[in-house]
């Protein structure tokens, strides 16, 4: 895989099982990518400060900072990171908040199809 094709993707979800599933599906579809995990918003912001991140998937309903706030902070501080919210919180208000910060929105549950849609959004130019 060329260096240009290798991506660093940050997976943010308070559920360890969810992070494991997302990681597995991403690596199955994009072998060679580097998956970084964070269990909450603070950890996510720490990770992006420490290393280059190309893409991020964010859960919404987490203890502490919710996914919207993380998306907003990434949008402000790291505008080159493409962000996709991946959540069971599928209300219209959620979609609009995602749109406002240029983030994608894909609804859970985590499946091959839902992660496929997230990847489709993240890789869109």
């Amino acid at each position, binding site marked *: 895989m060329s260096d240009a094709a290798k991506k660093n993707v940050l997976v943010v979800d308070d559920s*360890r099982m969810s992070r494991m599933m997302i990681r597995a599906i991403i690596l199955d579809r994009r072998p060679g990518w580097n998956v970084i995990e964070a269990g909450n918003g603070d950890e996510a912001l720490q990770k992006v400060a420490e290393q280059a991140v190309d893409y991020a998937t964010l859960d919404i*309903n987490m203890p502490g900072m919710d996914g919207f706030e993380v998306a907003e902070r990434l949008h402000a501080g790291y505008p080159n990171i493409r962000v996709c919210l991946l959540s*069971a*919180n*599928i*209300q219209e*208000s959620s979609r609009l908040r995602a749109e406002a910060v240029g983030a994608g929105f894909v*609804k*859970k*549950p985590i499946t091959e199809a839902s992660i496929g849609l997230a990847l489709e959004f993240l890789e869109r130019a």
Partner: protein
Amino acid sequence: MSHTVHLTEDEQDALREIFNVGLGYAADSLSLMVNDEVTLSVPALSIITREQATTTFQGILPGSFSGVLQRFEGGFEANAVLMFPGDKSLELVRLMVGDQVALEDMNDLEQEALTEVGNILLNSCVSAMSDTVGGTFSSSLPEYVSGYPGDILPEFPPEMDHILLLNIDFTLERRDIKGFLLFMMQLESIEQFKTATMKYMNQFL
């Protein structure tokens, strides 16, 4: 002799996540019905004994409540209860029917409307959970319940001596109406639900 069930951290995580998926769909349904944003807490999971149930329920919702109880069976059996603090359920109904109903008719309507809200929310939740882990389910007719949280205990079958309790609270943002959703299973169903959940998760791991 009763026995208990042990859930590992990963299994608890997985069950909370499936419940979270269900809640997301339920919150969306509620949001559409009342035209307000619904904020969800992070789900809490515990395994309690029947003896502990009353105290636990009172800790979740002190004071009186109105709500809806519904039983689900299929791949797993569960009792789900949607609860609102005593005075709030009427406010919720008023949100849904607006000015279309005269005040004197509102109390009669409250139970019926609340029961229908419960039916929609609880079915949305359980549908999403069941779709995620696989299998089908059937539901009882929703039942209006009111009183104090401990009062719902007699509604559960006597063999339900250990209860898996998944609960969240949710808030209608603009109106500051808070509600609670409790999802309860007994031991045998916990095992069935756990097995189905881990099967769903493990297909990707």
